[in-house]
């Protein structure tokens, strides 16, 4: 038996005042969200000489829930956590202040300044802000899902896989993350059953592995109607869409991997969104509010990928820099409104 240590020195142990965000400072750019988009934006903004800080619920964002990354150019294979650690270390060398476990709950603008209030009541201010809050796992929205959350229903395969050692589990979904979770779970579980309402849309490299794993069964064109159980979940009630037959399947747990919904927080009713609830941005990551930028998975940019989110963050930081340069020449439109 061997144990290793995933030390995150910056996260838990930092008592260093120099790396702290200040409510007194008017930042050039405040970034909400510490995933690939936000971290890369901070890197680019800092290198442009902007005063920049990050407010995030979780340093590393969804990267932390990703088991393996093997499609980021130049890095052949790395765990999501290690990749987040690399990103954070890179930023650490530039001394960008990051406030972790911070949730922005209110937004206001005042004299061209953007004010961000946290759930813990502090307010930070900046000349521009970037929303890179990413997304959260989408729910199936079927009966029983909430009842059995944490009693069989799970959303984080790397967190919860060890709890299903030798048990039977379902995976709901047909994209890359669903197939990856199925493959991960098959390493510990007794059996894995992937259930998806249409056809698989995962990369062919992954689907090949899926079909060659003897522990995994696949049900396509099968819709989950209900999660059933007593104290804990015991199975699912499904509809075979080809035959219109309804039946029950049994297992101890279900991992829901059916995509994500954008984290809009206080911006939900303030910004222009598309019909998926994603923030609409133009080619320079500008939103419908002047001085408010958005990047990564929270926007309408298609194909949610780490490398796409990261590059989008870089672009947004450069756009914010450009905006700030123009502010110095022209009076800001927000100021005129006042």
């Amino acid at each position: 038996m061997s144990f290793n240590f995933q030390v995150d020195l910056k996260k838990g142990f930092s008592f260093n005042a120099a790396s702290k965000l200040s409510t007194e400072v008017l930042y050039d750019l405040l970034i909400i969200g510490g995933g690939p988009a936000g971290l890369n934006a901070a890197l680019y903004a800092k290198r442009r000489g902007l005063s920049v800080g990050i407010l995030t619920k979780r340093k590393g964002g969804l990267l932390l829930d990703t088991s393996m990354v093997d499609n980021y150019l130049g890095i052949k294979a790395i765990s999501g956590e290690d990749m987040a650690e690399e990103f954070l270390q890179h930023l650490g060398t530039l001394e960008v202040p990051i406030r972790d476990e911070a949730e922005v709950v209110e937004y206001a603008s005042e004299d061209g300044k953007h004010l961000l209030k946290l759930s813990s009541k502090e307010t930070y201010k900046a000349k521009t802000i970037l929303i890179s809050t990413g997304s959260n796992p989408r729910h199936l929205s079927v009966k029983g899902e909430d009842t059995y959350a944490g009693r069989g229903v799970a959303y984080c395969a790397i967190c919860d896989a060890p709890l299903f050692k030798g048990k039977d589990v379902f995976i709901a979904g047909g994209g890359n993350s669903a197939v990856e979770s199925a493959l991960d779970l098959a390493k510990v579980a007794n059996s894995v059953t992937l259930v998806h309402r249409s056809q698989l849309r995962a990369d062919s490299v992954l689907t090949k592995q899926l079909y060659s794993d003897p522990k995994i069964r696949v049900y396509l064109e099968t819709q989950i109607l209900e999660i059933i159980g007593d104290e804990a979940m015991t199975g699912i009630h499904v509809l075979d869409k080809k035959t219109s037959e309804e039946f029950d399947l049994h297992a101890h747990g279900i991992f829901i991997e059916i995509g994500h919904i954008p984290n809009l927080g206080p911006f939900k009713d303030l910004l222009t969104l598309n019909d998926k609830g994603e923030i609409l941005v133009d080619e320079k990551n500008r939103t419908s509010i002047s001085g408010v930028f958005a990047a990564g998975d929270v926007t309408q940019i298609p194909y949610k990928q780490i490398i796409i989110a990261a590059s989008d963050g870089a672009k947004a930081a450069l756009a914010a820099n450009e905006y700030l340069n123009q502010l110095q020449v022209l009076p800001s439109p927000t100021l005129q409104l006042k």
Partner: protein
Amino acid sequence: MQMFNEELQGQLKEVFNDLKNEVTIALFTKEGECYSCEETLGYMQEVSELSDKLTLKVYDIEKDVDKAKEYNIEMVPSIVLLNAMGEYQGVKFNGIPAGHEINSFIPALLEVSGHESDFPKDLEERIKKIDKPVNIKVFVTLSCPHCPGAVQKAHKMALMNKFIDAEMIEAETFGELSNKFNVSGVPKIVINEKYELVGNQPIEEFLNQIEAI
């Protein structure tokens, strides 16, 4: 068996410069079959050697019955942290705090040593007002990146109020207990063996639940 490499030793030594007062790590193990007891002992020995302010005391749950009772030790391996006065303030780890949980264990050492961290005043007041016994169990796995956050919050609350007792429980090590509380997703927070929260919740949610009891 060496648990820490040189790099990690160096990092931890530096972190331990911030230890304010002395902390005693009281580890309970037992003879015979005990999943991860040996590794936890090695881990704690190595940690305690990295700072003069850290002392390790090893007890046996079956032989040191009084001590085990004093700290409510019900399973092994179990670790409680005692402050400079030798007082138990409700900071407990059941199972080896390795993997991601080193990120809740090290901050707990610092906080028990008297290191104060920023905390919103209104929440502090709400925590201090609690006047009935509260036990918080935080079920974790070692591969869960956002579990240490939940453990840290529970321990922080324990340090602020003597009625609160907070324990990390490694779900794989204590499978029976995890089954009893239907743990199939972590972190799972169980308050007074009855009220459940799933996921790494903000302290407000802990408080809402506790205040509703």
